[in-house]
Structure formats: structure tokens, C-alpha cells
């Protein structure tokens, strides 16, 4: 019996064949199986209203599914529908692999010795495609994006073509002088990487003496100038006991509480060689990051790496989608290639991706785009 897979934005994956419907609600993992007869097919609108009412009484989730089915068009499972989800949300653009730090856990394995970087023509093409696809946010990252000679120009260009939101993910070490002055005027958002209130711990993780003081200075300066600032703290063995003090420290710099996210380290890049079993949130603190497996819209993301390779996300480097040196980003992301799905595999395999991928969207995409989990 051949089952057809559908994606029902923004939260359901459906399999359908001859009266049988299986539905997985992605954000919760709830799995429902509804079996009708060919003449009472659930998905083809042949189910009577009173039967739907009974179904929903037994299983309230089916009430939600019914509303979704009435309000939206089913999309066949293709690479594009899986990547895009309910709409293109975030594009990561790694301007360079080079970094002025060499953090012990870096997923991109960046360091001062790295030389790979995107050239200006490629950056322009990528940003134009991001606009064409209607991405809501472009995050410039790396390595450290501020080291790229094209960073400020990229922000300028993104503003010019009216990409809604630009964010620079940085350690802030190079956020000074004319670079800072020009960026301040362009007013992008900043996301800073930070590890501990304790300079020794922070510098040990970045393996860069003096980095704590320089990042602190950059954060304070951006906050004082009224720029949009958030801070990401990756929790690992070295800083697991610092979380509460680090949180207080960041509040002291003027960062708002809901702009501090503690994220668990992922087994990607150099992080793969380090223990990642640390969840070092400050006690009782409700912040993002570690909790990013929480339900939310299945919005689309993609990442263009410093070598032109395209992935669904910066952490999903096992899922190579193509290279912007071969074809455009827009073409890569809008592929109508059908997804052959092992339906019983989705929930079990998704859990296996948990060590590498922090959010359920990425876990789900990994299973859908690469059914055989090689984690």
C-alpha cells in the first residue's frame, strides 16, 4: 500500500493511503492513526461532520487537525516544503571561517588560522535570494563575521534591499572603531557569544586571553547605544557552575533577562569531542536556548557556509543541500524533490538527533531529509 506524505503547515506531517491517515503533530510528537474505509476517507473530505465530532471528542488533537485541514492546502512532502515549513524564517550566512577566538566547542571549528570566506559577489547573490524568498531574518555569522571585510557592506546592502531583520552573531572583539560606528548607524541586531562572568573561565573556553574584557566592553557599548542585543551562553563542563552569576553579570551590563539564552552544547565540530551532557541553566530561570525544543512554528531556516555549502541550519552540517558555487541559493532551497519517508521512523529517529540538534525543527528535518539516521 503506497502512502503519500503531506506537510500541513505549520505543525503536521500526514501519511495517507486508501482510507488510512496517520498524523504526527510535530511540535508535540503526538501521533494519531485514523482508519476509515475507502468511502469514508478522512483526508478527502468524505468524513461526515458527526463522525468528525466523535473523533474530536475522543481525541481533542483531531479537532485541531480538522481546523487545519479546513483552513489550509496540503503540500506534498518535498525538499522545499520540509525546509520552508510555514515560511522562510532565518538564513544564516557564515561570512568567514576565520575567528579571533578558538573556542573549545566551536561547531564551525573556526580559528585565526582559517582562511575560507565568502566573496562579495556571493554575499550579494545570497542576500538577493534571501530577499526573493522573503526570509524574515538574516544572521551574519562565521567564524566571527566582523573579521570579514564585507560585513559592514553586507549589512548596508541588506538594509538597502529591505531584508526585514539583520543580526550579527559575534564575540564582539572586533566591534570597535569605524566598524562599530558604521554598524551603529545601520542598527542591526547583535547576538553575542559569552561564557562566564568569570574572566578566567571565559578566556579558557575561548582560548583567547583578554577576550572576556573585550566582549564585555562590546556588549556594554551596544546596550548603551540602544542597539538590539541578545546574548547566547553555551553551557559546558567548564562553565556549568557559573550560570546564575553569569546571568546576573549580563543583567548588570544592561542586557534584559529575556535576551539571555543558555544553550546546551551540541556534538558538532569541536563540540563533538567534548562532553555535552551539561544543562547549566540558572536555577528557576526561564530563558530560551536549552528550552529551544519547545513547541513553536515550524519555520524555515537555511545556512550558507563560508565555503558556499548550503545546509538546513548551521548545526545540520550532515545535510548538504548544495553549493552556491554550483547553483543559486533560491534554486537549492526550492527543490521539488519528493521526500521518501519511512513514517514509523520519524519519531524514534528524531530523538536520536537530540544530541546534535537543539531544536525539534532541525531534528525533524534531519529525519525527513535523511531518513537513515547516522548520528
Amino acid at each position, binding site marked *: 500500500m503506497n502512502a503519500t506524505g503531506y506537510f500541513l503547515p505549520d505543525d503536521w506531517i500526514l501519511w495517507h493511503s486508501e482510507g488510512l491517515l496517520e498524523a504526527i503533530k510535530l511540535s508535540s510528537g503526538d*501521533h*494519531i*492513526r*485514523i*482508519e*476509515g*474505509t475507502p*468511502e*469514508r476517507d*478522512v483526508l478527502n473530505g468524505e*468524513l*461526515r461532520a*458527526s*463522525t468528525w*465530532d*466523535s*473523533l474530536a*471528542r*475522543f*481525541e481533542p488533537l*483531531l479537532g485541531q487537525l480538522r481546523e487545519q485541514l479546513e483552513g489550509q492546502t496540503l503540500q506534498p512532502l518535498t525538499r522545499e516544503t520540509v525546509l520552508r515549513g510555514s515560511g522562510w524564517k532565518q538564513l544564516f550566512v557564515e561570512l568567514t571561517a576565520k575567528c579571533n577566538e578558538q573556542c573549545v566547542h566551536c561547531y564551525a571549528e573556526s580559528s585565526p588560522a582559517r582562511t575560507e570566506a565568502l566573496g562579495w559577489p556571493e554575499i550579494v547573490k545570497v542576500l538577493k535570494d534571501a530577499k526573493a524568498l522573503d526570509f524574515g531574518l538574516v544572521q551574519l555569522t562565521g567564524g566571527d563575521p566582523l573579521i570579514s571585510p564585507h560585513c559592514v557592506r553586507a549589512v548596508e546592502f541588506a538594509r538597502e534591499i529591505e531584508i526585514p531583520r539583520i543580526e550579527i552573531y559575534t564575540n564582539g572583539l572586533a566591534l570597535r572603531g569605524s566598524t562599530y560606528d558604521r554598524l551603529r548607524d545601520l542598527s542591526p541586531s547583535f547576538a553575542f557569544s559569552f561564557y562566564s562572568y568569570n574572566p578566567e573561565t571565559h578566556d579558557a573556553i575561548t582560548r583567547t586571553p583578554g577576550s572576556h574584557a573585550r566582549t564585555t566592553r562590546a556588549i556594554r557599548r551596544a546596550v548603551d547605544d540602544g542597539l538590539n542585543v541578545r546574548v547566547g551562553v553555551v553551557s559546558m563542563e567548564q562553565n556549568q557552575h557559573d550560570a546564575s552569576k553569569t546571568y546576573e553579570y549580563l543583567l548588570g551590563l544592561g542586557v534584559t533577562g529575556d535576551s539571555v539564552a543558555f544553550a546546551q552544547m551540541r556534538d558538532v565540530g569541536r563540540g563533538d569531542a567534548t562532553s555535552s551532557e551539561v544543562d547549566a541553566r540558572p536555577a528557576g530561570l526561564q530563558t530560551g536556548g536549552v528550552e529551544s525544543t519547545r513547541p513553536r512554528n515550524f519555520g524555515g531556516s537555511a545556512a550558507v557556509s563560508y565555503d558556499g555549502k548550503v545546509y538546513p541550519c548551521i548545526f545540520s552540517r550532515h545535510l548538504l543541500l548544495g553549493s552556491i558555487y554550483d547553483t543559486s541559493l533560491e534554486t537549492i532551497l526550492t527543490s521539488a524533490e519528493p521526500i521518501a519517508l519511512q513514517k514509523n521512523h520519524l519519531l524514534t529517529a528524531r530523538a536520536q538527533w537530540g544530541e546534535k540538534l537543539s531544536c525539534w525543527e532541525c531534528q525533524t528535518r534531519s529525519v525527513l531529509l535523511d531518513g537513515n539516521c547516522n548520528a
Partner: protein
Amino acid sequence: MPEVSDRRVPRRKDTLTHEVTDTDEVVIYDSNGPQLLVLNDMAAGIWLMIDGKRTIDDITGEIVNHVEAECATVTRDVLAFLGQLEQRKLIAWQEAT
């Protein structure tokens, strides 16, 4: 009556509940799944006769009394449907007491 007597008694699994709709369909809900099964009115009629007491012979006999169909045909259809329910682990069998 069937040519070969069948005294087996189908019994519904304990975790099942059902509801009859106003169009005489039956929706069966298995909380151990969860899975739902929508039965058309014919299948619903058989399902409703599964009470842990009626044998296959009883069920078939009652249907034959209400529809214009050959006993052998009804028996075949009933067995096929019960076989599907068994396959889905919705019923188990016991011998008539």
C-alpha cells in the same frame, strides 16, 4: 445458519471505547495508540454485536435475519471483518461457555 458451526466468541479489547454517530457509523478509539477506526454502518452493525457473549454463529444468524443475503456470503464477510479486527488487535477470541 453457517454450514460449519463456529462457536468462537469475539471479545473487544479492554482499552477500546466507541461512539455511534447520528449517521449510524461507529468511531472506535484505542487509547493505546492512539488510534481511531471509523466503521461504516454495515461494519458498525457487526461491531455492536460483539459483546463477549455472542458467538460467530449468533452474529451471522442475526445478520441473516435482517438482510437479504446468502448465509455463506454473510459468514464470509463477518469472518473477514473479524479477521481485520483481530489483525489490528482490537478483539481477542474466547470459546463459548
